[in-house]
């Protein structure tokens, strides 16, 4: 497909486990974003990549959260020592060129549940 692809769609983990969430952006898109969406809320910004460079990680809730995009395409969001409050939907979005004013196109997210 031509859209943003995220995997897995659902992830259940026990508290304290590490998890890795994958995002395949639209081919050729320069900008990649990660958002966290709690139930009944709008998405909240986590981090932003322009190609392989992580230009903003100000929204990451703690140092347990880490994101990378080593080759400027696929990105991985990793959460170490998961806590119950990490339970949420994690959305990835991409946009074509520079980030400003461009619509961001979202994947269907990974629903993470921490037991």
């Amino acid at each position: 497909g031509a859209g943003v692809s995220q995997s897995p769609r659902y992830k259940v983990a026990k508290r304290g486990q590490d998890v890795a969430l994958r995002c395949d952006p639209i081919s050729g898109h320069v900008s990649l974003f990660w958002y966290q969406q709690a139930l009944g809320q709008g998405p909240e910004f986590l981090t932003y990549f322009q190609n392989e460079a992580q230009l903003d990680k100000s929204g990451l809730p703690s140092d347990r959260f880490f994101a990378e995009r080593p080759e400027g395409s696929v990105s991985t969001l990793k959460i170490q020592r998961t806590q119950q409050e990490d339970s949420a939907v994690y959305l990835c979005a991409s946009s074509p060129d520079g980030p400003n004013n461009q619509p961001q196109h979202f994947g269907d997210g990974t629903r993470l549940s921490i037991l």
Partner: protein
Amino acid sequence: EDQVTQSPEALRLQEGESSSLNCSYTVSGLRGLFWYRQDPGKGPEFLFTLYSAGEEKEKERLKATLTKKESFLHITAPKPEDSATYLCAVQWGSGGSNYKLTFGKGTLLTVNP
């Protein structure tokens, strides 16, 4: 204080009953206002971008408008398939950090047949 406020939180309409959703924002230096539709279990689907006060955009039964402090999403003669959560988001500020979207909490629209 929320920077983006959407109202109402939930709206029930009968098929064919037109209405409007509101998105008000308190940020300064608006770069763009975005409307998205989100179905259960899906990611937000892009609908419109508005850049300046007075701008309007239309798509099928939806029309989005923008003033200096708010935007409206007008739904004309809605159908049950228009049922979804509608999200409003803004890009704002100057300098190098105005790429992130700040979202409202959304309006849950239900259209009954």
